[in-house]
């Protein structure tokens, strides 16, 4: 931690001191009522999704004797056209939608963070090339490209990726979601590489890789965490949107989006089919947005996030 003590004298910014960062952030985060609401709701949703197999009903087996039953004590969200318990399907759908969200975040961090780090750290021609690629991705109407890509992948037989599986859809969305990470990380690296503790580490013989991974990356973790939270929400919306239009996760595997899509035909007569899956999307997005908002405040937006807009 020798380098960090040099840093303390040059930047008396809570954010850059990793020793106090966690506690300070948590203190500010706790004071944000929306964020606490968000944490509670998303935890409930995740626990429900994890406990889905505890449901007495099978999510995919049809039961013609109990078609279109309205919500009751036996089926708290009613049943669908094939007599399947909607609540069970919503729980399993949550597993799919939430895991797509998590995987998209992971994929976009794996792609975006190294690109942003290399561009910001080395600058020059490498930066120019990487940022032009990022611009190209940002110039595409991404949701429309997602539709095209999943339509194409539908027809290709690739092991693990056939038939619009959870993995396929996560990859497709992830490949178009890393640009914000790249920009954020680049901006953070650009400003942090000029600090004295980086110069000190270099003077002590630290390699580029060591400086990037041990010194700069931990200090740019704030915006990455905030963006990861928000991206989790976007990914859930994008997956549900794709599945709603029929290009995402394919039935009988339930996802919140394709449950809504299936509801479209008869929802006027059996409104619960449309109401409940949508409510799940709504509650997960609103809680994620609140958490993101709380994190942004907690990580002290004026110090880092505002800079990103200028670069």
């Amino acid at each position: 931690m020798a380098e960090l003590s040099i840093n303390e004298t040059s930047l008396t910014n809570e954010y850059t001191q990793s020793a106090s960062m966690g506690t300070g952030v948590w203190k500010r985060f706790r004071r944000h009522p929306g964020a606490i609401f968000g944490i509670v709701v998303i935890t409930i949703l995740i626990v429900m999704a994890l406990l889905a197999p505890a449901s007495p009903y099978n999510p995919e087996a049809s039961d013609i004797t109990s078609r279109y039953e309205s919500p009751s004590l036996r089926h708290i969200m009613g049943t669908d056209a094939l007599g399947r318990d909607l609540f069970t399907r919503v729980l399993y759908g949550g597993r799919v939608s939430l895991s797509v969200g998590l995987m998209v975040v992971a994929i976009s961090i794996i792609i975006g963070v190294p690109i942003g780090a290399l561009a910001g750290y080395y600058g020059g021609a490498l930066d120019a090339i990487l940022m032009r690629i990022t611009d190209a991705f940002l110039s595409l109407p991404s949701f429309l490209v997602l539709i095209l890509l999943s339509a194409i992948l539908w027809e290709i037989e690739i092991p693990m990726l056939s038939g619009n599986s959870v993995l396929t859809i996560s990859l497709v969305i992830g490949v178009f979601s890393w640009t914000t990470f790249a920009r954020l990380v680049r901006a953070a690296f650009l400003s942090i590489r000029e600090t004295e503790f980086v110069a000190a580490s270099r003077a002590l013989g630290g390699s580029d890789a060591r400086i990037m991974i041990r010194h700069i990356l931990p200090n740019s973790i704030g915006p990455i965490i905030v963006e990861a939270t928000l991206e989790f929400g976007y990914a859930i919306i994008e997956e549900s949107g794709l599945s709603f239009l029929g290009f995402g996760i394919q039935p009988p595997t339930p996802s919140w989006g394709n449950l809504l899509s299936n509801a479209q035909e008869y929802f006027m007569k059996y409104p619960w089919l449309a109401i409940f899956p949508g409510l799940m999307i709504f509650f997960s997005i609103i809680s994620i947005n609140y958490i993101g908002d709380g994190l942004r405040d907690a990580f002290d937006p004026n110090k880092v996030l505002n800079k990103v807009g200028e670069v």
Partner: protein
Amino acid sequence: MIQTVGLLLLLSVFLFALVNLAPGGPLSGQGQSRHIDPDKVELLKRQFGLDKPLPTQYLIWLVGNDWMQVDSNGDGAMDGYGTRQGILRGDFGFSFRTRQPVLTEIGQRLPNTIYLTVVTMLVAVLIAIPIGIISAIRQYSSFDITVTTFSFAGQAIPEFWLGLILILVFYAWLKNPFTGDPLLPSGGMTSVDSVGFNLWDRIVHLILPVLTGALGWIAWYSRFLRSSMLDVIHQDYIRTARAKGLSDWGVLSKHALRNALVPLVTLLALDLPYIFGGAIFVETLFAWPGMARLYYQAALERDYPVLMAVLIIGAACIILSNLIADILYAYLDPRIRYE
């Protein structure tokens, strides 16, 4: 400028490669929706020039084939010059689905999308501006807290779900008390039996699609304007304006609002492509004959010429709107100068 052109070329290569990624090329999708025997596929391939190497195909797509010999009837022998002019000269080819020129198809649908988008944006901005201003000048009032809560909710409602719920409430549940018909139509731009231009009929058909499309933007813009107003009213020049005796209204309209609106205007330009992207849900839900629904139908049937055209035009629009945002920003805020 050169960068912009380069970017578009890069995107065109990318999109072209993407479509040709499917084994068997762009015709492969034809097997999914309808059955075609393999000989016919070979014939179609020769007719569409899909038997040529990919770089040649890309070149033809880009600049046309009216300078080279082609096999127009697919019998394996060259029989004259091609007729395609390439996308650079505005020829996006023919739709696999309708056999019409892609540009004609888009030309029929684009005005409807622009019409819906413009109305949606106008409604969103006209509602969001007063909400944002009041929230900012009455910060932490009960109005502000209510609005902030609602705007969080508004941003979290997926458009496709909102649309379904609105149809449920205003079409299936609520009835017109005089006629007993559904209160609002659930789709289309006009009634099937309407003759000529009927303003009332048009407005009635706009309500649900516009509401569906606008809610998220109202939430987002009112929050954005609130924070941009809060930034502005704590500036020195606002204190100066107040100190020289200007009324609250004078300070607000002459000094605060003008400066707070600058970032909103640029944001609007930047958001335009996303509004178009979101239009795909509104247009499919409400059977709106627009460009996004055309894209959806084309995707269902793997109509690649249409898909490529919409994507290229969409990318060009995004680049253009970024440019407009930059120019507007510099124009509205004289402190910003581009080298």
